[in-house]
């Protein structure tokens, strides 16, 4: 079951007023998307489930702070889940090099960025990502989607750590000027 942005916003505000039914609606509409985001970062169902649960408790507690005038409900929900999942990834010692040879393997077989082009809200980001050098683009996707650290991206792409840091920083700043420039 999917929900419109306006519905999600309304449910968050109802949850902020103590309405558990509203939280349930948010869960039914959004839990698969949010669990998918956490699972992609943590690659382990039990850990992703813990993150999803923590995130919904946080949604319940912080719902009053959500202001639909300041941003999208879908983005707000995804950010809560992503940052929680990233915290867990960090606490697992993400900054050290991984000994998992399969880490992120599925993402380098094609260019996943093509998959966001079709969505109306993805077209601009897609266009700007395509304007980056491929290595910068890949670094950004591996970090955002797979939750990789600089060190993990460096290992994955087999380049020095300092190089990855520079690629990501340069990539982000180019992305920003591209996206603001086409506004």
């Amino acid at each position: 079951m999917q929900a419109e942005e306006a519905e999600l916003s309304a449910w968050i505000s109802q949850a902020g007023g103590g309405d558990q039914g509203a939280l349930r609606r948010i869960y039914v509409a959004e839990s698969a998307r949010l669990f998918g985001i956490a699972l992609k970062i943590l690659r382990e169902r039990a850990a992703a489930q813990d993150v999803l649960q923590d995130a919904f408790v946080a949604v319940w507690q912080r719902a009053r702070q959500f202001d639909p005038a300041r941003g999208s409900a879908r983005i707000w929900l995804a950010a809560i889940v992503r940052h929680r999942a990233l915290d867990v990834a960090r606490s697992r010692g993400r900054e050290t090099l991984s000994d998992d040879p399969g880490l992120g393997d599925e993402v380098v077989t094609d260019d996943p960025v093509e998959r966001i082009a079709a969505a109306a809200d993805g077209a601009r980001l897609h266009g700007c990502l395509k304007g980056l050098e491929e290595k910068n683009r890949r670094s950004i996707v591996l970090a955002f989607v797979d939750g990789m650290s600089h060190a993990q991206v460096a290992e994955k792409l087999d380049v020095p750590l300092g190089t990855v840091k520079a690629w990501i920083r340069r990539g982000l700043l180019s992305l920003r000027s591209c996206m603001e420039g086409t506004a």
Partner: protein
Amino acid sequence: MSPPDIPSAPEELEALAGEYVLGTLDARLAEAVRAALPANAPLREAVAAWERRLDPLTRLAPPADPPAGAWEAILARIAPAPAPVASPARRRAAGWQHLFGAGLAGAVVAGLAVFLAVRPAGPPPERYVAVMQSDRAAPAWVVEADRESGIRLAAVNRQAVPEGRVMQLWGLAPGDRGPTSLGFVPADGSRFSFDARARPPVDGMLVEISLEPPGGSPIGRPTGPVVFIGRLERVAR
């Protein structure tokens, strides 16, 4: 005053906000950014802008159904001290999920087909259907609705109502400020009709069943767990 970790030069601030949203900051720096957000408006704006810019990338994570029990675990953490009947109700709700097998999809389609075949003849009003689920993968009720004859429910796999509770049906259309009570689902039987004049069905309306104390919710919106939920969709003519 910003802590030394948080730069004030615009380009440095942008890069830091971008890396915070990207997720590449280490634990210490990520925590420093988070701690600075409430008091640092430029940082907050920069982070919000990056969340917006990069959001389409969240589509690259394929959706996945969370494990059964995740919702119950959330409810257990947010619910106030359980009322005497609340915990059997919750246990029963969890039990329902186990009882609905994976092969239910075919049964739902068959049930829908039979259900739709009995509609009265004549110029049809806009009709809507939904499958109400106790969980994403556990269909429980087939719903058919139109403005003239109201809302009809057919049980796919009827389960007992927890003792001391009644099932209350609610409608919530897009734009409504809150759910409207449509009546009670009797404890026995498998097909029911509801007069829906209080909240005529429209496309996209949610139908929900919550467990309530005898007599129904005293406050005009669900107080107990919402055990079934579905969304009405218009049937093409």
